[in-house]
């Protein structure tokens, strides 16, 4: 196809309140799910973890009409995308998940703890998950990152270092006591005193 003259990108608009039947039907509508909140494939190696929490607005009210999407590397720090020119993943792990919040603003992802991914200078980043947040009242999605409590590499992570120290905790999921798989808890505050750090990318 010949190149088409373009004069700028298509602007974003809100996902609106009524996206669930199209994007996150989860058995409630006559439509199938393209994606789920469980990223774990039977052949994926690595530590199985659950990340869960709730989403709140600037009044501290839960956001029940929110959609969260995550993108992450596998346990070896490789992305399931041919653009990652390092060794390709050898499992079916796709690294992408989607979850609509429930009536209490709650969400959960079952996944694998990601490995370390280099920054543009080749310096290792701490294990992290990219998170995109969509909702009614959000004209453009917010990008943030989920880091994991207790990782020694957090102290030298180049992206966390950009964040004022008193706001870093909004990005770090707290490990909770659990019987089997590790459970991490992270609430998302779209606005307010505990506002989550969002990134301009």
């Amino acid at each position, binding site marked *: 196809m010949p190149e088409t003259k373009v004069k*700028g*990108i298509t602007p974003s608009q809100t*996902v609106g309140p009524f996206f669930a039947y199209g994007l996150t039907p989860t058995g409630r509508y006559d439509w199938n799910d393209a994606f789920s909140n469980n990223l774990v494939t039977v052949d994926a190696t690595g530590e199985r973890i659950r990340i869960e929490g709730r989403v709140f607005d600037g009044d501290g009210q839960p956001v029940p009409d929110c959609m969260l999407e995550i993108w992450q590397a596998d346990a070896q720090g490789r992305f399931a995308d041919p653009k990652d020119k390092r060794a390709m993943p050898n499992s079916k792990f796709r690294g992408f998940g989607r979850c609509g919040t429930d009536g209490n603003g709650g969400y959960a992802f079952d996944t694998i703890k990601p490995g370390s991914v*280099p920054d543009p200078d080749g310096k290792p980043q701490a294990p992290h998950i990219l998170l995109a947040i969509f909702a009614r009242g959000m004209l453009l999605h917010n990008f943030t990152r989920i880091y994991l409590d207790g990782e020694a590499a957090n102290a030298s992570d180049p992206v966390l270092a950009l*964040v004022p120290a008193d706001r870093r905790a909004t990005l770090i999921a707290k490990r909770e006591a659990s019987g089997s798989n590790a459970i991490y808890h992270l609430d998302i505050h779209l606005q307010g005193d505990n506002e989550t750090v969002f990134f301009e990318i």
Partner: protein
Amino acid sequence: MTLAYPTASNAAHPPRLSPAYKSTVKRSPAKPLIVMRHTLTELTGPVYGHETVRDGDNDLTTQHKGEPLGERIIVHGHVLDEEGRGVPNTLLEIWQANSCGRYIHVRDQHPAPLDPNFTGAGRAQTDAQGYYRFVTVKPGAYPWGNHHNAWRPAHIHFSVFGHAFISRLVTQMYFPGDPLFPFDPIFNSVTDANARTRMISAFDLENTEPEWALCYRFNIVLRGRNATPMET
């Protein structure tokens, strides 16, 4: 292909706080966003298998026993990068109200009829040239509670992925000449008039199918341009 994603391109997007659209007031960040360099995490993105889009997922008029009521339309176009090159094999998801302006969503209480033959959800994957095509019915306008006598212009919601997670886009496609444009705070949240026109499809007579369906063309431009040595 190596692409760069200049953040200047984001100026086309609406400001997150757009008070005329009231729901933004408590859901937009009040603190400054942190600027960061793009790493491999931002510059890669999901790849989907053939199971993601099934045969017929791009035709919203054949998902039930009968045909939905309303005006049958074709919506097609290309997904492009910022230099006008097609974005191949990328996923589009759409969802919309029926021809009466009613969503199937359980919380939509607009007193307009549901159509048992219309769900309003579809998927397509672009071909090697970035081309996609849907068949659906034209959605109706509908009222909402933002302000007195508030009505949304007819629109189809689009979700698109693109080359990397950073190019992720959720937007709405509008129809040309809608009289509700001047009154809609969501459409007008995009402050640049030229950028607003990029959300409006074009009537496409050439690809309108005689005796069958009107056609609208909607090209979607995602972030991403060729990386030059200066930018890497």
